[in-house]
């Protein structure tokens, strides 16, 4: 999980999803996850996943990398599918696609929305300590990843991590974590001191929802609503079970078009190709 890359994607893209504000995108993710919870249809899930993949291409971000980030839960879904294996490929596919689709919906939101915006949108629904904790954890994560990067380099250079010496590796790695904690705490205490000097009284400023394009936000919500409506129709309306197959047929050209669009050089895609 490359948190730095995710943060960079969220802050430097210019696609319609980047232009939408955080709340509609959270609603979009919620609707997609609700459809994943509701459905049992393999073809619907395949269609939804292809649609989301098409959206990823449409963002102009490096799609294979984004899709790979969202593929992490597939490892565990595969284990689940293997455990429940009874020769039914469709049943196994449903489990794997449920994991992939829900994760891709979440990842689309975080690669197109700066984390402070996501947290600011959640703030009204969370107790103050948790809302502030989310902001500080996010900030501390980058601080810690920097420290960890340096620590791992130092451990390797000085022979602290070597093949075959498991006990020594665990001892050195654990001391490294301890060192990280102490250094991280020192920095966070200084950070707290600075916050107090600047008038911190238990509420961080800056945690507000930034406005985005209403049209882009509405587009995201409508996409999510359409996916959920389809899931509900397939699940509860007799005679509409075959809609899932048509959904796949409709999603495939959308994916092809989005992929072609993503490959076509333009300003918002250029940045990733150069980097």
């Amino acid at each position, binding site marked *: 999980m490359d948190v730095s890359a995710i943060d960079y994607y969220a802050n430097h893209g210019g696609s319609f999803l980047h232009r939408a504000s955080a709340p509609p995108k959270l609603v979009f993710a919620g609707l997609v996850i609700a459809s994943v919870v509701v459905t049992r249809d393999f073809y619907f899930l395949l269609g939804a996943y292809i649609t989301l993949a098409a959206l990823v291409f449409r963002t102009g971000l490096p799609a294979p990398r984004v899709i790979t980030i969202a593929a992490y839960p597939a490892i565990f879904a595969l284990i*689940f599918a293997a455990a429940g294996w009874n020769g039914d490929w469709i049943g196994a596919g449903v489990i794997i696609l449920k994991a992939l689709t829900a994760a891709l919906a979440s990842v689309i939101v975080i690669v197109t929305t700066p984390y402070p915006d996501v947290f600011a949108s959640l703030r009204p629904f969370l107790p103050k300590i948790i809302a502030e904790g989310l902001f500080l954890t996010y900030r501390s994560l980058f601080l810690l990843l920097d420290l960890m990067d340096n620590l791992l380099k130092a451990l390797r250079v000085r022979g602290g991590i070597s093949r075959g010496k498991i006990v020594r590796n665990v001892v050195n790695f654990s001391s490294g974590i301890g060192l990280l904690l102490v250094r991280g705490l020192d920095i966070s205490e200084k950070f707290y001191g600075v916050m107090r000097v600047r008038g911190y009284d238990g509420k961080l400023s800056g945690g507000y929802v930034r406005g985005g394009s209403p049209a882009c936000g509405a587009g995201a919500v409508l996409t999510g609503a359409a996916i959920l409506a389809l899931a509900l129709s397939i699940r509860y309306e007799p005679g509409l079970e075959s809609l899932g197959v048509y959904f796949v047929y409709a999603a495939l050209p959308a994916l092809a078009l989005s992929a072609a669009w993503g490959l076509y050089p333009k300003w918002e895609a250029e940045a990733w190709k150069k980097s």
Partner: protein
Amino acid sequence: MSHIHIPDGVLPLWIVAAGWVVTALLLALCIRRVDSGDVKRKLPLIGIVSALMIAGMTLEIVPIAYHINLSIIAGILLGPALAFVSVFIVDLIISMFGHGGITVVGLNTMVIGAEAVLGYYLFQAFRTVMAGRRAGWASALAAVMSLFLSTSIMLGVVYVSHINPAAALHTEEAAHDTHGGPAGDVETEGGLDFGRFVKTIFLLAPLGWALEAAVTGLVVSYLYRVRPDLVASEKT
């Protein structure tokens, strides 16, 4: 080992909802318990400890499909109430990266939060027994016992939800060793040998517990040498 990696839409809705309700109640209790002045002072510490837990959870140890949680360290450093809050923050953030479903954040917080809370109380108990010495050993023992109990809670969740249990753990051997029922929307029909599954888990899980206990013991031992105030201070 105890982190529930079941994808969204697999567990029955009632157990997911129950997880959220119980977690919300426990969070409310924890927040009421801590003094607001103390919270302001400890927010940076919550941030660092939560970030460390996230970093630990993203480092997968491939051969045994295990990641360390560092939840016992969170319990020892933050105290039970703030550690539970920290665990919720961690679960919420990593679920957004697709690590554990968003709908199971409540259940994950319950299980890992139990680890942190039990870890704190057991650490204090072992330190009292050891007359304040050997903080490393006390924390390692607390880690083993907390992980045993949290794994039991996780197995309890699997049992009451009637799903195929191998999905709840990322333990490949367990998956191969379990004859699950149909996956579908995950209602098993007599294919589940829960007793056998429990035996398999408790045969494999100690590998993960030993690793987490070693890391916890060594980290706490290091902290006790360098910043004893962090380990020994009063917690709520």
